[in-house]
């Protein structure tokens, strides 16, 4: 079996699978990093991804256009994030519970709307999914070429977003504002930065990314909608944010590791590896818990995370 693992086809296939499986997590992790850097923990992520998956699918089913589906998913993500902003930023409700409320609501809503639109046919409907696009020269590179450079467009977008978000956070004025709002909202307020608006914008942008990440699962990776299509990937992304120390590149790295493990267990399964399927499925979750333990020791958490910002609290 070892010989089979180290053969070219296996490695190529694995590389390709890694990027594919990591894509939705990269989107969601980047979206969550934006929100958390501004000081808001968005636990609505799992629900938003599901709504994104459902909305994208239904829209594509109806319109025939995949990209419109992705756009619809992004818009839905933004709307739900706006609701989160209303609850957690403007009303200052507990971020934990607001987020969970959004997830529960979105989950219910996704299933409700799907059932309404599609009913309960014996054979669930499918769409014609995205096709993978090969980058002309690069995909010819031996061994890694057809794995890395023959991917869905959305995957390339996700990868491009990593440096974009990094530059945004660390090299622009907006990024400095976001980081200050997340570390010390009082400091940001006193220099005239609109704390609530900044947080809302970050949430909404993050919501769009989360929605897109969800739609990837129903429009590219698979071509149908199932209730458990997200399967906890939203929570994995939350963990990846912590794993990556709130840094976009490191968070994406965590997502890639997850993708690698996910791809690996599928392939090893195919080779007749005799460990129960489910044990493998457990590994990403256990890995993230271990990562959480290691990472909790470092004080890189944005200091303003989880605290609603209100001015009139102090008196006299």
């Amino acid at each position, binding site marked *: 079996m070892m010989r089979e693992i180290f053969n070219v086809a296996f490695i190529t296939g694995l590389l390709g699978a890694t990027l594919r499986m990591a894509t939705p997590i990269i989107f969601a992790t980047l979206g969550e990093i934006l929100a958390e850097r501004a000081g808001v923990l968005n636990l609505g992520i799992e629900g938003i991804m599901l709504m994104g998956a459902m909305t994208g699918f239904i829209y594509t089913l109806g319109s025939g256009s995949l990209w419109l589906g992705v756009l619809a998913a992004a818009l839905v993500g933004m709307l739900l994030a706006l609701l989160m902003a209303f609850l957690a930023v403007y009303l200052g409700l507990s971020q934990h*519970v607001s987020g969970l409320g959004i997830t529960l609501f979105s989950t219910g809503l996704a299933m409700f709307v799907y059932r309404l639109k599609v009913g309960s046919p014996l054979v669930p409907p499918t769409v014609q999914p995205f096709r993978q696009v090969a980058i002309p020269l690069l995909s010819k590179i031996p061994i890694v070429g057809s794995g890395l450079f023959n991917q869905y467009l959305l995957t390339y977008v996700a990868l491009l977003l990593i440096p974009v978000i990094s530059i945004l956070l660390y090299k622009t004025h907006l990024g400095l504002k976001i980081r200050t709002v997340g570390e010390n909202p009082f400091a940001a307020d006193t220099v005239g930065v609109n704390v609530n608006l900044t947080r809302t914008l970050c949430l909404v942008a993050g919501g769009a990314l989360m929605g897109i990440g969800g739609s990837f699962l129903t429009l590219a990776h698979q071509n149908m909608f199932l209730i458990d299509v997200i399967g906890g990937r939203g929570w994995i992304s939350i963990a990846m944010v912590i794993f990556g120390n709130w840094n976009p590149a490191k968070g994406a790295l965590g997502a890639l590791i997850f993708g690698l493990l996910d791809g690996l267990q599928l392939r090893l399964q195919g080779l007749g590896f005799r460990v129960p399927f489910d044990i493998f499925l457990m590994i990403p979750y256990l890995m993230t818990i271990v990562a*959480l333990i290691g990472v909790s020791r470092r004080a890189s958490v944005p200091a303003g995370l989880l605290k609603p910002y209100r001015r009139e609290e102090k008196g006299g």
Partner: protein
Amino acid sequence: MMRLRIVKRPPLPGWARIAIPVAAVVTTLLLSAIPILVAGANLWQSYYHLFRGALGTRFNLLETCVKASPLIFTGLAVAFAFRAKFWNIGAEGQLLAGALMATWIGIYWTWVPKFLLLPLIIVAGFLAGGAWAAVPALLKTRLRVDDVVSTLLLNYVMLHILGALLFGPLQQPGSSWPRSSEIMEAAKYPFLMIRSRFHLGIPLALVAVFVLWFINTKTVFGYQSKAVGVNLRAAGFGGISTTAVMMKTALLSGGLAGLAGVGELCALQYRLILDISPGYGYSGIVIAMLGGLHPVGVLFSALFFSVIIVGAQTMSRMTGVPSYIAEVVQGLALMVMLIFLLLTEYRIKVARK
């Protein structure tokens, strides 16, 4: 441009503690009209079938009670944990742990005297749920790992443990589905009312409500758990061993969720399947919040949700509104309750610039 100003308000009188959840419930029901209308159904008919389906006949009423039993347990579990600020989002996994333990004993421990089997299962299921909650509690107190994320992730770990077992050693011989064999007769919860599924779990749940109320108000542990939740640092300053209290809280909380799992297995399913819980653990969060983290509040809140869940099935059959409306209502209720809770402490002033 409009600006929202959140201003502190003077404390509300005592009756507000009841009025607020009631107002939240009414508001939620009103908001649920929107999805019903979107589904193209007649509003009055839908509500009629909802309530009739849940409360209209003897059978329906008892079914609603049956549905309430696991919800009361998970609601109590989450409420007690949240009260101590142990953010137990893992009630779902703890429920599964309880069900798993009940399955194992209920199928294989044939050597136990019949009259002891059920009590043993109940105690073991409680401990299994408690143990599964102890893991994130330990991670939180010793290693400062965020409990929201860890309890959440462990739900999925437990789900996969179940999967591995149900496709493996626990799988019913001869079956290709992930399901276990049936548990022994002596392990099944007795039915308490004829022509219904009203089982032992319901009075057990009521007993649990009383026990939790007693713990909260009359015991040292209840006081300590509350103090730790109000201000961890000050509680520690005052000499309370916060780690021990947190661990005990987690054990009790997980144990209650485990009992929900035991009930589902031993009263309704009789065998372990992967979707033994349609999200009772998560519903517990909404129920706990709506109930103001108070045991009696949890009781009423659980009843409200079981009405919605049971009623939604009938409503779906009669008016075509997808039964998932129950989940939508659940999410709505949580958000509405949060807003109402805010309004108990603050007023919202809209200032126009």
